[in-house]
């Protein structure tokens, strides 16, 4: 594409923002990359000053690092020849540095000679090559930790190119509007002016016509038609005005500040390159230099090199958008970094022809590069907060756009990719991106993907769990809370945080219950009825194939396990009544207990949405049940111990309180304390049972004289043993992989408990 076509193209693509520099892509990019001040209100003068500063920096760098050993080193007279001779092994000697630079240059030349051969007229010219070489050399010397990697030259070349385009544009404008560029001074002396005498402004006062300007702007290739030249500066369209002002040799900072200057192409290109490589200061922004690093940065979450991480981000995004394509690629064994490495390192430089690439980069650069504010996660996650996202690339708009662009490119090739049979052909397809594409569509898609990417990155709970490093040392129940993450996710998958929240709500409800329980009267839950229905429902389902309830069960089971182990551990200290957990049917709880024994499928706690949303309510119950179960176990345990003669005054007190508290319980049902756990057929009124249990305990306590005590003690002991068996089995093996023998053991134990309970009851009676 010729330069003038380039300029035309540049005018078409105008991302939002500062519209002053629509035709000057170089200036736009410099603003977007952060070299020039980006606020629309910054004047041309400010731009000039900043430009001049950056150029000075480059010049100093060059002076410092480019070595000519023939020039005497300043300050050392005479140079110490034992060090400064050409063969010196001393690494500090100028010659040593010279040789090192020479080696680096050799590597660079290998790449540069193969740069953009299709645009060889510009890129292969010695001037351009020399500039590229120097820029790359200086950058690599300045950043020895990365050095030079293949691909950097491809990043640099378009930057230099757009600057060159700008300069050419300037020359064109110059040729069009010559008289605007002349030094006003020349004519000043002899001209009568009604305005102030010493008006050094280059605006002239002449007449003109607007239409001709438009004509001219639209027709840049030829100036065939003769037009009246626009005479007044301020009637030039703004772009030309800007161009003129930007190239004024007498503005701020003089020649060094000429923003569009041919002399300083190298300096500007260097600053742009540097800004691109070390883009943002914040954690999430896209710094292309990171893609060249081989090892993982120390604060990375995943411990992977950034390129690999970014590639997996791409695949993750793809999986969200188009799961079938994603799975197809994964099946074929196409790892994302095979193609993404090149895409990311050169920012798609090798995939698009130069003109398309410039458009793509327009979009990428116009996206903001700062880290997006994350939605803060809910309470309890402090231990778990990691410093960055799973996918660092997705945490800034620019990074998200890059990822979106990549995914949209993959989607563009969707049909041909799905047709491939092996990895090689897919890779071939991916690495040879077609030339004639509808770029605007691809970019549009990329933008929509960008917003998706930003959204998912903001909700940490949607991030793949597999890669998260566990950082909590707490018990499993805390674990389950913290895994939940943010609860503010509105749409999409219902994450486990939903359940976690429920649990938490339940828990807090528990606390209240506990408090109330101590004094409150017995509740006659109207809810009971519905509970009983649900219980029956549950019952029937217990008989049926357990697998279809796997969605609901597992979280409970796991937490049951957790709670059990925890609570059994600290029952001693816990004098509170666990009975407070009650409101709901213990039956469900017990079922759960047994089901555990039966070893149904145990799914991991981070749970995808259960399909049967209708079970929502029952799931709620499940949480309660869990607590109930734990409470049950606790009570059982306590009972056992009490039966073995362990009595505390508090207990007695508690017991004493209880009977007062429930004077009027219609105690129709026979109650078996431990049987509560097992006897699920009858459990409808949880509270009543509890009361009864308390009563029972009291009774047993009060009744336990020496005589009965022995038998009771024995019974109690055996009960305890059974419970212990249960515990140990459950601890050893989580229900998912519970072996057959374990299952049997558990069931046996439970049966025994039941028997004992019945026995006790009959004794009591």
């Amino acid at each position, binding site marked *: 594409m010729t330069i003038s076509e380039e300029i035309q193209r540049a005018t078409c693509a105008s991302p939002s923002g500062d519209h002053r520099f629509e035709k000057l892509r170089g200036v736009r990019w410099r603003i977007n990359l952060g070299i020039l001040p980006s606020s629309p209100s910054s004047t041309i003068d400010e731009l000039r000053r900043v430009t001049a500063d950056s150029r000075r920096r480059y010049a100093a760098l060059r002076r410092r690092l480019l070595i000519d050993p*023939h020039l005497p080193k300043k300050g050392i007279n005479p140079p110490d*020849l*034992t060090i400064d001779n*050409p*063969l*010196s092994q001393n690494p500090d000697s100028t010659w040593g540095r010279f*040789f090192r630079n020479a080696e680096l240059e050799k590597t660079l030349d290998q790449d540069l000679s193969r740069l953009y051969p299709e645009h060889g007229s510009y890129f292969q010219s010695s001037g351009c090559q020399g500039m590229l070489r120097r820029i790359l050399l200086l950058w690599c010397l300045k950043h020895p930790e990365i050095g030079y990697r293949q691909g950097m030259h491809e990043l640099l070349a378009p930057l230099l190119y757009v600057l060159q385009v700008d300069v050419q544009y300037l020359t064109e404008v110059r040729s069009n509007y010559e008289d605007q560029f002349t030094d006003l001074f020349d004519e000043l002396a002899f001209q009568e002016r009604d305005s102030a005498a010493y008006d050094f402004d280059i605006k002239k006062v002449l007449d003109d016509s607007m239409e001709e300007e438009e004509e001219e702007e639209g027709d840049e290739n030829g100036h065939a038609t003769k037009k009246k030249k626009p005479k007044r500066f301020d009637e030039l369209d703004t772009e030309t005005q800007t161009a003129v002002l930007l190239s004024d040799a007498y503005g701020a900072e003089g020649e060094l500040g000429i923003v569009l200057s041919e002399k300083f192409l190298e300096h500007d290109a260097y600053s742009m390159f540097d800004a691109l490589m070390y883009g943002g200061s914040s954690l999430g922004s896209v710094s292309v230099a990171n893609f060249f690093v081989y090892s993982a940065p120390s604060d990375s979450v995943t411990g992977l090199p950034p390129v690999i991480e970014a590639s997996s981000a791409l695949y993750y995004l793809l999986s969200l958008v188009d799961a079938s394509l994603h799975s197809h690629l994964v099946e074929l064994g196409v790892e994302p970094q095979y193609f993404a490495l090149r895409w990311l390192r050169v920012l798609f430089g090798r995939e698009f022809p130069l003109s398309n690439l410039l458009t793509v980069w327009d979009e990428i650069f116009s996206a903001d590069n700062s880290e997006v504010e994350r939605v803060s996660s809910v309470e309890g996650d402090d231990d778990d907060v990691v410093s960055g996202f799973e996918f660092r690339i997705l945490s800034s708009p620019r990074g998200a756009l890059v990822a979106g662009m990549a995914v949209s490119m993959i989607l563009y090739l969707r049909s041909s990719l799905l047709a491939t049979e092996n990895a090689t052909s897919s890779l071939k397809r991916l690495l040879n991106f077609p030339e004639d594409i509808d770029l605007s569509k691809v970019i549009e898609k990329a933008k929509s993907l960008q917003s998706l990417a930003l959204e998912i990155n903001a909700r940490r709970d949607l991030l793949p769990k597999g890669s998260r490093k566990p950082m909590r040392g707490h018990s499993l129940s805390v674990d389950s809370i913290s895994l939940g993450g943010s609860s503010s996710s509105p749409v999409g998958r219902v994450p486990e945080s939903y359940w976690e929240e429920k649990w938490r709500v339940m828990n807090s409800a528990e606390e209240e219950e506990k408090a109330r329980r101590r004094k409150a009267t017995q509740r006659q839950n109207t809810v009971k009825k519905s509970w009983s229905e649900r219980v029956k429902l549950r019952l029937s389902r217990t008989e049926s194939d357990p697998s279809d309830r796997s969605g609901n069960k597992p979280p409970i089971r796991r937490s049951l396990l957790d709670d059990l182990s925890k609570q059994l551990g600290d029952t001693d200290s816990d004098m509170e009544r666990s009975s407070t957990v009650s409101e709901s049917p213990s039956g469900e709880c017990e079922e759960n207990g047994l089901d555990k024994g039966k070893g149904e499928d145990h799914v991991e706690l981070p749970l995808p949405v259960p399909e049967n949303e209708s079970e929502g309510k029952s799931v709620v119950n499940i949480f309660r049940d869990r607590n109930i179960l734990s409470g049950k176990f606790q009570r059982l345990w306590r009972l056992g111990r009490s039966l073995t003669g362990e009595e505390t005054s508090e207990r007695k007190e508690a017991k004493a309180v209880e009977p007062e508290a429930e004077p009027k319980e219609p105690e129709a049902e026979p109650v078996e304390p431990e049987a509560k756990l097992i006897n699920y057929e009858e459990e409808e009124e949880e509270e009543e049972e509890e009361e009864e249990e308390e009563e029972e305990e009291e009774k047993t306590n009060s009744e336990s004289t020496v005589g009965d005590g022995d038998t009771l003690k024995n019974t109690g002991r055996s009960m305890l043993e059974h419970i212990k068996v249960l515990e140990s089995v459950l601890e050893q093996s989580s229900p998912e992989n519970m072996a057959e023998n374990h299952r049997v053991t558990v069931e046996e134990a439970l049966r025994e408990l039941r028997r004992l309970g019945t026995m006790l009851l009959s004794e009591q009676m």
Partner: protein
Amino acid sequence: MVLVLALGDLHVPHRAADLPPKFKSMLVPGKIQHIICTGNLCIKEIHDYLKTICPDLHIVRGEFDEDARYPETKTLTIGQFKLGLCHGHQVIPWGDLDSLAMLQRQLDVDILVTGHTHQFTAYKHEGGVVINPGSATGAYSSINQDVNPSFVLMDIDGLRVVVYVYELIDGEVKVDKIDFKKASTSTSAP
């Protein structure tokens, strides 16, 4: 910026075992573009070793060299300079400046490099430079028993040549430097 190494009179294995290790450590491949050798290596192994330092090796025949195919004298052009190479046993009296100047005029070179005396010398003479790099191994000669190992590195850059002299004195490498600027090249001689 061309680096040219000039050395000679090694007399390996007859009078010396090898180059001094300090010299060897300095002579790493990749830095030097040309080697000119005054002769008396004497064996092929040294020839090969020099070849590893730099593939562009120019060598003339000394009286003890075992390879009889080396020429007596050689001239080459590096940058703006014409260099002449000769062992020096042919020029009598050995090491005499006027005689060497005669040879220089004969060969029509700006820089004449000869050896045989095992003594480093460098003269600016009649618009040219006559250099003797000495013996790189410090081998004794018929006129001198106590010889310091030495060699010369020339840095040719346009019209200017900087001559670095490396000498091993008392176990330490001493470096010295001589600047020489050539008058701008005259038009072709008639």
